[in-house]
């Protein structure tokens, strides 16, 4: 379980988040919606301890992480997988090295076991034949699948997706969404999905939170979005895509 409690964040003088409180339960998929630049990616980074809030607290499985040192944060981060908005694949490593990175770094597994798991992810992501390629020679959708595979391979119990379908064609994005929903059925995995695309919310998420001008204006079951009176939520429901 991840919980933000009254989290505020400033960049210099500019306040991005203003007293945001948000809870992500285990085994649920929660979508975070909001216009561009509102601080959605920032929220994911706060959850991983990659950034520290200006004030407020962040709890991961009951542990307050915003006061921990970098070394103390590592074991907490290992419970979570992260798919970055720009994928953030290691561009000097091959696809299989990217996929096996976490296993080699953090777990004392025999090399055969690592190779077996990497192969499994390669098949799962439909990347056969690309094992020894560098990320630069892959298409956008393939890179996204590598990024997802890299986060799934160590079986975290919570996974954070930053815009998993942005910029993808409908077929690829459907594949990725069905992958995300299958994860919960098979692996009991909790997830946070940051997205611009309202259809994605209704397709995979159990509940949704809407961030607008630094505050949470909606936090409830996804279908309840239709009942909201807030003009911003009404506008995204009618346009389907959030205005930029």
């Amino acid at each position, binding site marked *: 379980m991840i919980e933000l409690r009254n989290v505020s964040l400033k960049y210099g003088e500019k306040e991005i988040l203003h007293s945001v409180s948000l809870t992500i339960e285990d085994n649920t998929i929660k979508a975070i919606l909001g216009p561009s630049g509102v601080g959605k990616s920032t929220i994911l980074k706060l959850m*991983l301890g990659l950034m520290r809030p200006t004030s407020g607290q962040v709890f991961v499985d009951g542990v307050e992480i915003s006061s921990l040192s970098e*070394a103390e944060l590592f074991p907490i*981060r290992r419970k979570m997988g992260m798919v970055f908005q720009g994928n953030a694949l*290691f*561009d000097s490593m091959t696809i299989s090295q990217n996929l096996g990175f976490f296993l080699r770094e953090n777990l004392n597994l025999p090399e055969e076991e690592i190779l077996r798991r990497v192969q499994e992810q390669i098949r799962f992501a439909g990347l056969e034949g690309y094992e020894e390629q560098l990320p630069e020679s892959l298409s956008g959708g393939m890179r996204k699948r590598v990024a997802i595979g890299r986060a799934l391979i160590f079986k975290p119990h919570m996974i954070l997706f930053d815009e998993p379908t942005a910029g993808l064609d409908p077929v690829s994005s459907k594949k990725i969404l069905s992958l995300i929903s299958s994860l919960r059925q098979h692996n009991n995995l909790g997830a946070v999905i940051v997205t611009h695309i309202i259809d994605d919310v209704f397709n995979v998420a159990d509940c949704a939170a809407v961030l607008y001008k630094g505050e949470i204006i909606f936090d409830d079951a996804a279908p309840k979005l239709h009942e909201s009176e807030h003009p911003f939520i009404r506008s995204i429901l009618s346009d389907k895509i959030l205005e930029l």
Partner: protein
Amino acid sequence: MPVTLIRNIEKDLVYRLKDFFLTMQDFFLFGVRSFLTIPKIRRYWRDFLDQAKICGADSIPIVLVSAISIGSLLAIEVGNLLEDFGAKTMLGRSTSISVIRELGPLLMGLMLSARFGSRNGAELGAMKISEQIDALRAFGTDPIAKLVMPRLVAALIMFLPLTALSDFAGLYSAAYMAEHYHHLDPGIFWNSVYPRLALKDFVVGFAKAPVFAVIITLVSSFNGFSASGGTAGVGRSTIKGIVVSSGLVLIANFYVSKIVLENM
């Protein structure tokens, strides 16, 4: 009006000073953490080998070029000067000391800061803005141990043989110029080199290598790690890294010479 102006300037100055000291503190901690992670070298052995090749083997051409040019130049110019005093037989002594103690290491340091430093700055800066450094942290890996420490160790080790190579190439190109430009007998040249060279000449030259290695690697990596603001930001931080590390190389060159020569 002037009062508010002064107040604004004061506020700006205080802000900048604070910023400067905070950056210095960050840099200091960054340096300490890079050294403290050296015990993890076995784990990042591959990264170390890659970096050793980049800063060692791949730097050979540029070190050779700078050593040969400084060696030949010194032989020609100093030779002309000594000829006026009729002291051309001293050519070996004067050039060898310059090459081994001062200009050889200095030019090598500047060249490596341009070559190895700029590469580090640009590579790490690009990793920073594409969030690869955050990704390392997210996957439980210390980016300083994985990215900076192997570069530091590689530079600490590889700059020593590069210094030896630079001395060797500098001296031989000076000897070549002495023979072919000033028509000085090689025996006379080398005779004025060897007996006079003292241990401290080599200590000065070789002590500079690890000092430059630390300066160049840490400054360029720190600037790469603090890159922000897209591709232009990577450019800015790379340039800043080179300017600062070149400046520090110049200063360190002076102080290492001073300290070693005063104490030996």
